[in-house]
C-alpha cells in the first residue's frame, strides 16, 4: 500500500524535533533535501532559580500548529512517515487516562540535587555507571521522579506512566505509550547493555516497573495516526509513526557518525562531543557518559557541556547591545559583527580567560553551582578580547572533554554542526584548540530533524540502514588546525582548568550573596 502511494507522489518524511524552545517540523524528500519547514515555539517556565518546566499541552499545540503549517501546499498523502527527535531527561507524569498531571520537569531543571545525593549514598556510583552508562545527577529523570515522590506524593500516587517529550506526542498521535532505547538511556534507570529497565535500580528506589513505558528500538513503528489526531494535525489517518530518538542520538545520525572511526561536535545552546562505539566508555573519573544508540547493539559515548551557545548568546544580549543595535541598522547578523571583533584579538585574547559555566556544568565537572567568569582583565583589554575569550573558553572546555575521549578516539576529522557551527570563526577555533581537522556538512543547521528523518526512513524501509545517511551528506567546508595555535592552547589549558578549581569554592558562596530580590527573580 505504501508503495502504491509513493508512485503518485514524491516520497516524503515528516520529521519533528521537540526542542527546548519549540517544535520544528521539517519535510524531507527521499534524497534528504528539505522540502519545507516550520517552527512553532513554546515557553519554558522558570522558578526558584533552578526549576524549569514546560506544559505538555503546549508541546501538543505546537506540534499540531507546526504540522498543519508545514503541510500547507503539500499533499498529505506524500508523507510516508512521521518521526521524532526530542529533548531528553525530562519527567512528565501521566495518569491512567494518559492525561498529564501538571507540567513536565525538563532536562535543565536542577531541583533534585538532594535526591541525587541520597541516591549516591545508597549505591556505589561506579556500579551505577556500569548499569546505566551515566553518573547519578539531578539532570536525569530518576532524581526528578524521586523529587516528585518526596515532594508531591499525590501526583506520584496518581502517576501511571513517566514519559519523555516525544513519547507523549507519539502517544497523542497513535494511542500507544512507548519509549525508545535512546530516550530510556537518559532516565538514569535503564540498563545500557541489557536494554531493559534496571531491576536493581528500581528495587533500590522503590519505583514500580509499571510506571515506565516499554522501550523499543528508535526505528520501530509505534503505531499509526489516529482519526482524532488526524483531525487535529492535518495528517492522513493511518500514517505510520516511527518513535524516533532523543535529540542526542538524532544528532549523532545527522552528523553521519555511524562507525567507530567517526566523531562529531554539536555546537548549539549546549554542546557535546559524540561518538559511535560497540562498547560503552567508562572514564575513570566518570566525566562522560553513554547513550543507547539508534542501532541497538551500538552505544553513543558522549560528553555534554551545558552553556556553549548559551554563553555566547548571553554575551551578545548583555554585553553586545551595541552590536545588536548596529546589526539592525546594517541589516546583518549581530553574530557577524561579533565574529569580526573576535578576529581582532590574538589567540589567548591577550591573557584573558572566560569560564563558560553559566548554567552550572555537566561534563567535565558535574557541578550545578559552577559559575561563569572573566578572569585576568587588565586595562589594555578591549571588547574584542572579551568576545574572543568567550568563544575560546567554551571551546577549551570542550577540549577537556575531547581529551577524556583520547583513549578511544579513532577519528581523523571532526564533524561540526549546530547553530554556532555556522560561524567560520567558531569552527576554526574548534579546529585550532582541539587540534583536529573540522568539517561541516550540508545538514549543519537541521541535524536533529535530518537525523530523525533518516531514523524514520529506516523504520519504514525507505532506507536500508544507518550507513545510508552518509549517501545523503556531503562536506561543505573544511577547517585545518593551525599547529602553532594548537600548541599555544595546549599550554593555556592547565591555567584554564586551574582557574575553575580555584573558584570552585567561591562559586557556592556567591549563591548566598545574590541580593534581596535575587531569589524571587527569574527570567
Amino acid at each position, binding site marked *: 500500500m505504501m508503495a502504491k502511494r509513493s508512485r503518485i507522489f514524491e516520497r516524503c518524511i515528516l520529521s519533528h524535533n521537540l526542542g527546548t524552545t519549540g517544535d520544528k517540523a521539517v519535510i524531507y524528500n527521499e534524497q534528504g533535501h528539505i522540502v519545507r519547514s516550520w517552527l512553532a515555539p513554546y515557553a519554558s517556565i522558570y522558578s526558584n532559580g533552578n526549576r524549569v518546566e514546560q506544559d505538555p499541552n503546549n508541546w501538543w499545540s505546537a506540534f499540531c500548529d507546526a504540522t498543519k503549517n508545514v503541510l500547507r501546499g503539500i499533499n498529505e498523502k506524500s508523507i510516508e512517515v512521521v518521526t521524532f527527535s526530542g529533548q531528553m531527561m525530562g519527567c512528565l507524569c501521566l495518569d491512567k487516562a494518559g492525561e498529564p498531571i501538571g507540567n513536565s520537569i525538563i532536562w535543565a531543571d536542577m531541583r533534585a540535587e538532594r535526591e541525587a545525593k541520597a541516591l549516591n549514598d545508597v549505591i556505589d556510583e561506579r556500579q551505577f555507571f556500569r548499569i546505566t552508562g551515566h553518573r547519578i545527577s539531578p539532570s536525569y529523570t530518576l532524581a526528578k521522579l524521586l523529587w516528585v515522590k518526596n515532594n508531591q506524593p499525590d501526583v506520584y500516587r496518581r502517576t501511571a506512566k513517566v514519559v519523555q517529550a516525544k513519547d507523549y506526542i507519539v502517544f497523542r498521535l497513535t494511542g500507544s505509550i512507548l519509549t525508545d532505547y535512546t530516550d530510556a538511556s537518559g532516565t538514569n534507570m535503564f540498563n545500557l547493555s541489557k536494554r531493559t529497565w534496571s531491576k536493581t535500580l528500581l528495587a533500590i528506589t522503590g519505583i514500580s516497573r509499571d510506571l515506565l513505558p516499554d522501550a523499543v528500538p528508535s526505528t520501530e513503528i509505534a503505531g499509526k495516526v489516529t482519526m482524532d489526531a488526524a483531525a487535529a494535525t492535518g495528517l492522513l489517518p493511518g500514517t505510520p509513526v516511527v518513535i524516533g530518538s532523543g535529540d542526542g542520538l538524532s544528532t549523532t545520525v545527522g552528523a553521519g557518525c555511524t562507525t567507530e572511526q567517526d566523531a562529531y561536535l554539536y555546537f548549539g545552546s549546549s554542546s557535546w562531543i559524540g561518538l559511535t562505539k560497540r562498547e560503552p566508555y567508562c572514564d575513570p573519573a566518570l566525566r562522560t557518559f553513554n547513550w543507547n544508540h539508534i542501532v541497538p547493539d551500538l552505544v553513543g559515548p558522549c560528553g555534554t557541556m551545558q552553556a556553549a551557545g548559551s554563553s555566547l548568546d548571553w554575551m551578545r544580549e548583555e554585553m553586545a547591545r551595541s552590536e545588536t543595535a548596529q546589526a539592525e541598522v546594517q541589516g546583518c547578523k549581530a553574530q557577524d559583527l561579533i565574529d569580526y571583533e573576535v578576529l581582532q584579538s590574538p589567540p589567548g585574547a591577550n591573557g584573558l580567560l572566560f569560564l563558560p559555566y553559566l548554567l552550572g556544568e555537566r561534563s567535565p565537572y558535574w557541578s550545578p553551582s559552577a*559559575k561563569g567568569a572573566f578572569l585576568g582583565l587588565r586595562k589594555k583589554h578591549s571588547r574584542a578580547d572579551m568576545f574572543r575569550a568567550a568563544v575560546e573558553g567554551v571551546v577549551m572546555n570542550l577540549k577537556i572533554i575531547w581529551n577524556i575521549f583520547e583513549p578511544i578516539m579513532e577519528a581523523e576529522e571532526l564533524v561540526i554542526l549546530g547553530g554556532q557551527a555556522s560561524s567560520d570563526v567558531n569552527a576554526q577555533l574548534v579546529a585550532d584548540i582541539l587540534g583536529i581537522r573540522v568539517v561541516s556538512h550540508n545538514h549543519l543547521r537541521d541535524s536533529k530533524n535530518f537525523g530523525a528523518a533518516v531514523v524514520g526512513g529506516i523504520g519504514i524501509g525507505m532506507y536500508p540502514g544507518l550507513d545510508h545517511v552518509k549517501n545523503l551528506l556531503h562536506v561543505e567546508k573544511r577547517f585545518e588546525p593551525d599547529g602553532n595555535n594548537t600548541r599555544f592552547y595546549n599550554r593555556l589549558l592547565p591555567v584554564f582548568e586551574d582557574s575553575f578549581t580555584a573558584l570552585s569554592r*567561591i562559586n557556592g558562596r556567591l549563591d548566598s550573596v545574590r541580593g*534581596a530580590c535575587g531569589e524571587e527573580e527569574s527570567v
Partner: protein
Amino acid sequence: MKQYILAHDLGTSGDKATLFDEDGVLIRSAVAAYQTKVFNKNWAEQHPSDWWDAVCSTSRDVLSHVDRSQLAAVSFSGQMMACLCVDAHGRPLHDAIIYCDQRSTEEERRMIDRIGMKEIYRITGHRPSASYSLAKLMWVREHLPDVYRSTAKVLQAKDYMNFMLTGGFFTDYNDATGTNAFDISKRVWSDSVLHEMDIPAALFPCAVPSSTVIGRVSKDAALATTIPEGTPVVVGSGDGGCATLGAGSISLGKPYCYMGSSSWVSITSDEPLFDDAMMTFTWAHPIDGLYHPCATMQTAGSSLSWFSSTFMHGEESENLEQVNDRAAHAPAGANGLLYLPYLLGERSPWWNPKAKAGFIGMHVNTTWEDMCRSVIEGIAMNLRISLEIMLARVPDRTVRFIGGGARGTTLRKVFSDVFGCDLLIPTLLTEATSMGAALLGGVGIGLYDDFSIVEKMNPIKEVVNPDVSLADLYQRKTETLKLAYQALTPVFDRMDA
C-alpha cells in the same frame, strides 16, 4: 581690601592655579597641561622646566584678573614620590622620575634584603617600593653615576617650584613621607635607612611643617610669573595631604574617601597606623603633629572608565551616568556577580602588581545591569577592606566623599551601603586639593585663623545614609571578594607566564 591666596596644584597631567579670597571663596582658576614621557614599558618622566612654564602661565592667567597687590601668599599642592636631582645651583641634572615609574624594582628588592619589609614599614610608614623616591635615587646612583655625583638635592615637584620662586631648598613633612627615607615618627630623615642604603641625608632638603613660610618671591620669579616680588611663599604639601585638608579631615578621626582614577580612604590620627598585613600606609598630615593613615587602590574611577568605554559609545560623562542609571536597576549584590577591580594590579589592600581584574559568578540570568552594579560594588568593597582597619581605631561612622568619581548617585548609594557609613558629600568635589593648598597658604601667613575655615569653604551639601538591611549582604560579599582574590592569586601569577 580683599586679600587673595594663590594655590597651585601640580598634578600628573598639568598645573592648576586657583585664586581664593580671604573668606575662602574660589575666585578664578586656570590650567596648563604638560606631558609625561612614558617609555621602556614602565618608565615615566617629566621635564621640570615644563612644570615651571605651566606655573608661570597659570599664575599670569589668574592674576591678570585681579589687583595683584592684594595677593597675600602663594602655596602648593604637588604630585608626590618623585626623584628630581638638582645640582647645588638648583639646576635639574635629569628629567624628574615620577611616582608611577617602576624601573627601580631591583633597588626595591635590595632595600627589602638589607633592611626588611616590616622594618622599613615601621620606620617610614610605608612598605619599601619602587614607587618612592629612595629606590629611584638608588637607581640613578647605579645607572647614571655622573648625575648622582653632581646631585646636591633630591626634590619633589612642588619643592622645585618653591626653589624657583624663592631660591631655597625645602620640603614639607607630608611630601617627605613619600620618599621611603623619612622617619615618620620622629619626623626627621631616617639615619638607619639612609645609612644602610649608603645615601647621605644631606641630599634631601630641609623638611618643615606644611604651613611654613619658606621665603619670598624673588625678582626673577616675579618677572616670570607676575606674582609681586616679596610675596610670601608657603611650602605646601603633597596632593594627598592637600586633599585631606580639602576634604575637611582636619582633626582626629574624620574618615574620607577620595574617588578619582585611583581611590583612597584615609583618616586623621595622632600616630602612624601600622597594621599587621601592612595593607595601609601613613603620611605625615599637613597639620603639624598629626598623621593621615591611608589606603590607595589603583583602578577605581579608571575601572569605571574602562568598563564604560569598552562597552559604550557615548562621551565618558554620559557613559558614567548610564552606568549609574543601569546599576540602579540591578538588585543589591548584583545577583551574585562579583567584580575584582584589579585592572592595573593592586596597591592597598593586596600590594600585588600581578593581581588582575575579573567578573566572577556569572550565570545565564546575569544582566548588563548586574555588570554595571558589580563594578561599583567591587570598587567599594575593595576600599572597605582597608577602611575597616581604620574604622576599628576611631568612633566615626561617617565618611566624607570627594573627587571627580564621587558624582554618580547610584555610586554614592552603593558606597554608603557597602561602607555601612553615612557619606558626607561636600559642595566642591574636585577642588579639594587646590583648597588644601590655599588653606596652608592662608593659615601659614595668618590670614585664616585655623584650618576650620574649610567647613565654610566647602560645606556638606548632602548626606547619604546606608540601608542597614544590606549590612549583612555586603559583609558576606566583601568576605567573598577577599576569598576570591586569595584563591586566584596563584592563577594570576601563572597568567603572566
